[in-house]
């Protein structure tokens, strides 16, 4: 059996606010295998965002073990963490976080810029990804000229462009209407079917139902870890909705 993509044991994050110690994450041990589509749920303050920051290598744990693809990343220096994020993780945010006044294709290129990829190859790979998310014809549009769903697609293309090990999506549909949300979820499911590991942070059951595994957080711990044997298929729902309309 190969090592899981994500492996944590007793993962903890403690913040100090004044004299109070706040345990944002209190001993989380779980494995996520390559190719899984996992939803992380919980109310705000449950520790799900902290968990996401830790496995996204944006932050370091106070204690515990975190191995990404068998590699210990719990104590890496700042720039090594940056390089790990660049190579291995694709982020999708609730508010897209695209660079304003910058063409879609340049936004998608950004991670490759920091990876040191030559500009010609960069452009080619970015265009490829934009076509993959269905925005090949809008590569020169600026974010302000794109709809919310289109902006999130650009963000997904940006997350995919370095061919990462996993996609971390933090409330990816939080700023979108339900129809567009379905489109984004269909895209994420399609990527997952292609072998991409997807971790989805959300507080909406509506979104979580598309995942095959659902983790529930409360007070910094995992309180429920269940398999969803029959995840909904966003593409089918979308097709049905179209037919109805």
């Amino acid at each position, binding site marked *: 059996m190969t090592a899981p993509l994500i492996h944590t044991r007793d993962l903890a994050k403690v913040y100090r606010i004044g004299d109070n110690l706040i345990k944002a994450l209190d001993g989380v041990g779980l494995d996520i295998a390559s190719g899984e589509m996992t939803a992380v749920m919980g109310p705000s303050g449950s520790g799900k965002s902290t968990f996401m920051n830790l496995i996204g290598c944006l932050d370091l744990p106070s204690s515990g073990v975190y191995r990404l693809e068998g590699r210990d990343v719990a104590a890496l220096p700042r720039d090594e963490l940056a390089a790990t994020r*660049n190579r291995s993780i694709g982020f999708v945010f609730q508010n897209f*976080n695209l660079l304003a006044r910058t063409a879609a294709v340049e936004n998608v290129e950004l991670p490759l810029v920091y990876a040191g990829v030559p500009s010609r190859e960069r452009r080619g790979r970015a265009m490829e990804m934009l076509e993959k998310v269905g925005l090949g014809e809008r590569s020169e549009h600026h974010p302000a000229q794109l709809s919310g769903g289109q902006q999130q697609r650009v963000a997904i293309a940006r997350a995919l462009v370095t061919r990462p090990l996993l996609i971390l999506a933090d409330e990816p549909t939080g700023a979108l209407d339900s129809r567009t949300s379905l489109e984004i979820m269909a895209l994420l499911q399609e990527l997952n079917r292609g072998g991409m590991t997807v971790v989805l942070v959300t507080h909406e059951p509506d979104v979580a139902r598309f995942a095959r595994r659902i983790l529930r957080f409360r007070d910094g711990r995992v309180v429920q870890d269940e398999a969803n044997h029959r995840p909904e298929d966003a593409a089918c729902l979308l097709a049905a909705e179209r037919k109805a309309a």
Partner: protein
Amino acid sequence: MNLLGLLRVAMRALAVNKLRSALTMLGIIIGVAAVIVMIAVGAGAQARVEEQIRSLGSNLLLILSGATTSGGVRMGFGSNLTLSEEDAAAISREIPETTAAPALRGAAQVIWGNQNWSTVIFGITPEYVEVRQWELASGRMFDPTDTAGATKVCLVGQTVARQLFGGVDPVGQVIRVRRVPFTVIGVLEGKGQSMMGTDQDDLILMPITTARSRVLGASARAKQRSVGTIWVKVQEGYDMKAAEEQVRALLRQRHRLQPGADDDFSLRNLEEVAATQEASSRVLALLLAAVASVSLVVGGIGIMNIMLVSVTERTREIGLRMAVGARTRDILGQFLVEAVTLSLIGGIVGILIGVGAAVGIAELAGWRIVLAPESVMLAVAFAFAIGVFFGFYPARKAARLNPVEALRFE
């Protein structure tokens, strides 16, 4: 990210807030322009002083006939002619490193046609022209027969030529000095104002023999062969202090002065006067540049201020860049390049305005300016350094942001 990429990102970021960027640059523009103008004006003043020193002749000692005490009343220098042509000849002979030129001075009214002009007459030997480094604009110099024969010929300075002759060529004309007719054989090159502000071109030179017997002879200075001043040129490379002491010792010996008695002449080292002037003009130039660079520093603080605002405004962008893999040095580089771009563009515009202003001052106020390429290079280097220095703190602040907090920043 490579430099070209960083530059493009910086230009784009600066273009977003055009007015703000322009106002920020204005500080640097004014600073650089001020430095350029001040250096140009300062260097111009220095060049003027140096020119005056050159016009005086270099490595010069001036000996004036001494102040003597007559019945307890001390007289001014030159009041008693204690120097003589023999003294001058002795200096040249005994101290081979020197050339001494005696000069007899007097004022006279000169007349040509219906014009007249009051000027200074110098009775000189041919050495004088060499020692004071007078050049001819036209005509010829005295030759030895002029001195020996006390011929009635003279050279006129530019001012005299202008005042007396207007547009006419003075060479060959006959002027009357104290009713004695003289033929003008040459016109001297202009030397301009002296360091003291007197017009060096307002003079007439004639052989010392002629001056003594024909023009100044009626005065008390008729005493045989005595002169008011002796100019001594010391060879290049010979120690001026040593020359000064040798001349002093020689003259004291010739004048039979007892040890302890005052000199009956006065010795001045013009080099020292010139050096003092030059030093003070250099200090002035430095002071001007220092005052101007204060405005450059203020401009730098403006850049720092705006860069801090920019870092705060773009916290989320920084967080995102970090999330997709920007390392500390990438973020540091991005904001440093942005600050340096601001300061360098400001610097270049400042140079254009500064050079324009300096040329304008030269045209309008008639001041002498010197635009040295070094000062322009210096200004560019300074602008660059200002950008790096004042951009570093905001850039480091950006590079040290925590990515989690930066992404969450509202």
